[in-house]
């Protein structure tokens, strides 16, 4: 990671100290870092003089727990790296959409979330205004031939889920290709965060992906703390860690129930569907809201837990966890469920690394990657959770990794609830200094969340970059479907359970 400005998760630097290099050296830096096993955690633009774009990359070295920052200035086009490093494809498309920077030679340049450019530029996709208001209204990749047919699904789906459009190219039941078009949920979240008051910015962060309120809320709070140079006190840090793991528990338990439902295994579907509520309700015992809204605040948490309440909550959770163990065991022991999940929707390790997958989806393919261990923050600097991995990269592995994570998170929550340190839960947050840049990463239940916050010359939020784990993983789902049956789509989809809102922002 030579030539980069070194930083760590949850640290702030002077924005002007980020090395500014020519485009070729910037791209060489990216290539070298990726070739050496590093990852691009975030890459984003900012408006620069004369309608040029200042691009900044956050590179993660997972083995050394280091982050590196590098910037360059680009004009209307630059050479694409996506062919060589597919993990960059979405970043380059985002930059093209937001700033009109055309990545020349991009293998599949198309809009990412159908948002309007952030500055007056020529449309990178050659469209003319007004753009069609349906994100799916553009030429999909098509397979042609006798007996080939196309299946279109969405944006309004059969169940109560977020909108997206899925286009399958099929030969009979076999899926030759799946293309996913997102953007329907685009609310302009990043732009609203910029310049927002702190109370509003916090609520926006909690609403980036509603099932990840703690994950995104925590990334935001830690970014503010890094900028202001404060840290949450130990007790507050404990309560944050407990809330983050409760969020993981609720979602993983719910997902195992949903996967069971999709293979038609009713005992676990009903059992886990209801048991998920135990963890949501535990979060509500903490802060009054089942999704943890209103718990976090820059500087710590807003509410404390008495010793008696903590002990009661721990007992209740231990009981709920025993029932989860029982319910999940039924699923994994059922030959019919195993038959539907084994070998379904495989993502190989090579594909996983090429696409830069994160979270349980990556770990199920054998990639041992977890922000809690690799770039530890808060409580995780003192308590190390073993990272759960699978090998087969199929629906079974994604379910199995979730189960292992449930097991480990449950132990973590119980231990920390029973061993809360004394002291305050919240520190005061001083005014944010101007011209600083902070990178804040959190391992949400879907994987790596990365926030990059920059203050302007008055100490307000100037540019705020959000990266949800789904940003990487949607392409993983599309690839997992290749060669599968159309009827396996819901099952594969549940095993990834990605966020539309978190992607569309």
């Amino acid at each position: 990671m030579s030539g980069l400005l070194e930083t760590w998760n949850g640290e702030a630097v002077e924005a002007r100290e980020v090395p500014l290099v020519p485009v070729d050296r910037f791209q060489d830096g990216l290539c070298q870092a990726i070739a050496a096993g590093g990852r691009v955690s975030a890459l984003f633009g900012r408006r620069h003089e004369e309608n040029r774009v200042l691009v900044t990359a956050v590179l993660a070295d997972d083995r050394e727990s280091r982050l590196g920052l590098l910037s360059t200035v680009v004009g209307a086009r630059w050479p694409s790296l996506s062919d060589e490093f597919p993990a960059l494809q979405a970043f380059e498309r985002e930059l093209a959409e937001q700033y009109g920077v055309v990545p020349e030679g991009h293998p599949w340049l198309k809009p990412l979330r159908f948002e309007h450019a952030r500055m007056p530029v020529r449309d990178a996709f050659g469209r003319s205004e007004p753009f069609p208001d349906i994100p799916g209204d553009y030429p999909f990749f098509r397979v042609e031939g006798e007996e080939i047919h196309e299946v279109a699904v969405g944006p309004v789906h059969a169940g109560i889920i977020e909108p997206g459009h899925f286009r399958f190219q099929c030969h009979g039941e076999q899926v030759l290709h799946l293309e996913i078009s997102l953007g329907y949920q685009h609310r302009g979240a990043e732009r609203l965060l910029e310049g927002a008051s702190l109370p509003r910015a916090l609520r926006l962060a909690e609403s980036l992906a509603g099932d990840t309120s703690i994950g995104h809320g925590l990334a935001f709070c830690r970014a503010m703390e890094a900028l202001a140079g404060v840290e949450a006190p130990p007790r507050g840090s404990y309560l944050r860690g407990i809330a983050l793991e409760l969020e993981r528990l609720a979602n993983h338990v719910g997902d195992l129930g949903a996967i069971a439902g999709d293979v038609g295994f009713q005992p676990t579907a009903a059992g886990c569907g209801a048991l998920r509520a135990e963890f949501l309700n535990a979060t509500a015992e903490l802060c009054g809201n089942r999704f943890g809204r209103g718990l976090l605040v820059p500087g710590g948490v807003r509410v404390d837990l008495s010793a008696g309440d903590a002990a009661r909550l721990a007992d209740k959770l231990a009981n709920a966890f025993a029932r989860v163990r029982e319910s999940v065991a039924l699923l994994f022991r059922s030959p019919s469920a195993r038959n539907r999940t084994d070998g379904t929707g495989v993502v190989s390790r090579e594909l996983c690394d090429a696409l830069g997958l994160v979270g349980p989806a990556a770990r199920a393919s054998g990639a041992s990657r977890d922000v809690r261990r690799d770039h530890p923050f808060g409580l995780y600097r003192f308590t190390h959770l073993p990272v759960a991995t699978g090998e087969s990269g199929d629906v079974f592995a994604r379910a199995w990794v979730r189960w292992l994570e449930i097991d480990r998170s449950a132990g973590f929550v119980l231990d920390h609830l029973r061993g809360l340190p004394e002291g305050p839960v919240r520190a005061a947050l001083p005014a944010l200094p101007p011209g600083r840049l902070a990178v804040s990463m959190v391992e949400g239940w879907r994987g790596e969340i990365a926030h990059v916050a920059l203050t302007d010359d008055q100490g307000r939020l100037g540019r705020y970059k959000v990266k949800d784990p789904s940003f990487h993983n949607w392409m993983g789902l599309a690839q997992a479907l290749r060669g599968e049956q159309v009827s396996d789509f819901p099952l594969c989809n549940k095993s990834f359970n990605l966020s539309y809102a978190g992607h569309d922002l």
Partner: protein
Amino acid sequence: MIEILKARLRLGRQTVAWPDGPARFPERFRGRPVLDPARCTAGCAACLEACATAAVTAPGTPEMALDLGRCLFCGACAEACSEGALTFTRDFRLATRTREELVVAGDEAKLARALDARMRALFGRSLRLRQVSAGGCNGCEAELNATGNIQFDLSRFGVQFVASPRHADGLVVTGPVTENMLTALRKTYEATPAPKLVIAVGACAISGGPFAGSPVVNDGVAGAIPGVPVDLFIPGCPPHPITIGDGLLRLLGRVTHEDLRVATTGVVGAAES
């Protein structure tokens, strides 16, 4: 098989007692707020400053009010008020029939009125709804899903979510309605046979929530499909499944009692033991 049956027996009955029995909520649950302008010291606007969505209006005057359509129920206003002029109760009944009724002043629960006799005859025992997520963060969507699980089980009242608008009696909309979902929402509305209901769930669908004012959203259902009346507003961020159920069942005339039954702290829906 024996193991499955044994596990099933151990789980027991899991459906919540509500609406016949008490609804259980955690101590810290934030339901309907109560305002006491008399306790509000003139000149202090701390509650307004703490509020992310400008839901508090006219602090320091007798007209002080809180708009539940904007409120995210984060409790920051109550925390900021040193005089206790603004507090949250555990009253989970929040849904109203009109947008105006969502504006709370003082201490009075405004309960959603039932549909007229004709509509009740049509939908009272079987209400099929099509949900449209139009920029929702998945919070409201998750809680709407929860209304169908074995704990809340709204299907016991004939309320179900269906896969197609053509099978539906109404729409449930979540999210601030993004520009990119506008066409899909309109088409779904048009595809629903009349007479049809429109129900806005969550702060985003009612007012835009934290996304209000974004150039790429419509600040909720009313702005997105003008001229289409909203029949029920269910506020919250996201509303609790029982708040959603209470609104729907009051709309259908299936719940009419006005006394509030909230048991002491407890996990909602835990098997009675």
